[in-house]
């Protein structure tokens, strides 16, 4: 990168090659397919919560984050936390593929004594940076990590995936104040703005917009992106990860579709939680395999 390059040129230097894009699309497809397979074991799970976030998972774990799978507690690794811990079923296949956990463990998802449940547990699962399940905590924990990273002069970034319904938790805004006040520039919040929560549309249940203005007013840099446009999403994450000049925490509002990739889920928000009979699961799998997102 040349120091005198215009902003547009700099941004382009983070663009994905066609090979990268194809690879990440395949990973997002893999995440959706594995989610269906694992939920078949548990007989209940959060399909559409993973489907809205599949591209975010793929971009972070297969492109942006600095990780060492053979050294899960590497002090300088990038961290990933999930406010929406119920989407962990989409993360476990990634951890297995990268080698954090073995395939046998993955295939025992939710069975008695298996470390993998509906929500991630850092004490049981290598590669999980923080346990979750109680919505609203993750940004505080991530902010603590980012504060500590700066204090210890370490160069890791902390990515925290938040649900849009999660914006209704008061602690999120305590953490937003804290991170803004302390200018935690290595902290990146990614809001999976899929628009739905258990009881219905987020903005019918308890309106959270305008998100961009809210986060900006809390002292954050805010970027908006189509959360399924892997090219735009991954290049934005690359840019944010590489930016040493930012003096603020960064919030990405990722506009997504709940259930993205399976048409009958995209139109029915009840698929936040559910079970697919193998015949319907096959329809979903066929659609995911035949369609490009």
């Amino acid at each position, binding site marked *: 990168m040349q120091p005198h390059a215009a902003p547009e040129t700099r941004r382009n230097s983070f663009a994905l090659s066609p090979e990268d894009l194809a690879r990440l699309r395949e990973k997002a497809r893999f995440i959706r397919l594995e989610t269906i397979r694992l939920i078949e074991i548990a007989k209940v799970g959060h399909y559409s919560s993973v489907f809205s976030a599949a591209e975010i998972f793929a971009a972070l774990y297969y492109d942006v984050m600095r990780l060492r799978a053979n050294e899960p507690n590497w*002090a300088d690794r990038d961290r990933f936390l999930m406010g929406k811990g119920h989407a962990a079923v989409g993360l476990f296949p990634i951890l297995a593929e990268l080698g954090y956990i073995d395939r046998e463990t993955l295939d025992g998802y939710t069975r008695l004594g298996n470390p993998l449940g509906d929500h991630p*547990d*850092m*004490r049981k699962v290598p590669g999980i*940076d*923080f*346990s979750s*399940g*109680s919505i609203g*905590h993750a940004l*505080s*924990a*991530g*902010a*603590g*990590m980012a*504060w*500590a*990273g700066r*204090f*210890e002069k*370490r160069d890791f970034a902390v990515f925290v995936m938040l649900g849009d319904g999660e914006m209704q938790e*008061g*602690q999120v805004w*305590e*953490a937003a*104040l*804290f991170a803004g*006040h302390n200018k935690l520039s290595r902290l990146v919040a990614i809001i999976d703005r899929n628009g739905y929560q258990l009881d219905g549309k987020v903005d019918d249940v308890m309106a959270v917009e305008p998100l961009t203005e809210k986060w900006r007013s809390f002292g954050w840099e805010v970027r908006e992106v189509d959360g399924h446009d892997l090219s735009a999403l991954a290049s934005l994450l690359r840019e944010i990860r590489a930016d040493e000049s930012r003096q603020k925490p960064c919030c990405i509002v990722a506009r997504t579709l709940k259930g993205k990739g399976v048409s009958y889920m995209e139109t029915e928000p009840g698929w936040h939680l559910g079970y697919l009979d193998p015949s319907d699961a096959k329809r979903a799998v066929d659609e995911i395999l035949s369609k490009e997102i």
Partner: protein
Amino acid sequence: MNGPLSPNSWQYRALNSANPGLNFLSDALIDLVADGHKIIAGSADLQYSNGLNKFAKAHPDRYISFGISEQNMVTAAAGIATTGMIPVVATFASFLGLLACEQIRMDCAYCAQPVRLIGHHTGISLGFYGTSHHATEDIGTMRSIADLAVVSPADGPQLYAALKATIDHPEPIYFRIGRGREPDVYTKDTPFVLGQAIEHGIGEELTIIACGLPVHPALEAARRLNATGRSVGVIDMHTLKPLDRAAVLRAAGRSRILMTAEEHNVIGGLGAAVAEVLADEGCGIRLVRHGIQDEYSLIAPPTHLYAHYKLDADGIEDVAKGALARI
């Protein structure tokens, strides 16, 4: 208009210079930093109430002002702990042990992070500030959380000793402390071992098992009763969890009646913890659980409340006489 104020006047920021008991927390942390421990301290807008202002002045880079955001403070502390540091966060016990209870459970204990949680001005020590500021349930909430140790020092020196003695404990600890005006029972050099009660004596007739502020008045009450020919002992059960079950059983084996004394609801607190041991082990001994009897405290200055609820020496002596009469 601009003359000096009366020496009787005082303002909040001078609290700990007027009240040396508030300095033990900061002193312990400053000494731990000097010993090479990676201490980070934080408070939720109460640094002058818990004396952390002294630490903040000594180590401004190691002090985090969290503002009035207790839940964020506890979870962020857990996040900091994941990087290998030892965060020590303090606020009123009513807010720490109740408002941030779920954050303590999920982020400190379930995640097994070595956060030190300092709930100060516990019990009814905030007097007429009222029930919102009282903590008579925090032993109950904290004691039922797995992988969380619960310690209730009797005074500032014991807090100092406990913080230092437990610094390598790999899991979180909730310290329940007073307002820094407790008369000293110990010195900073008195050995502290997590989970090992300090036996000031086991009475042939009665043993009072106490924790926190009531330890000092219980010792005074026992002295008075022993001077009249009775046999009364006191055990300082400073660790509520893990509880020193052997100490309870020793007292149960040698005394004819037991009594607990705590600045806490008798439900869920020390009395309950001791009763659990006695029931588990089939001890056929009567236990008088003295403390707050499942009610919200009256409004009054703290010392008046201690007298009213029989948590001063006169009161504990009175309750102990009642226990002796039931032998």
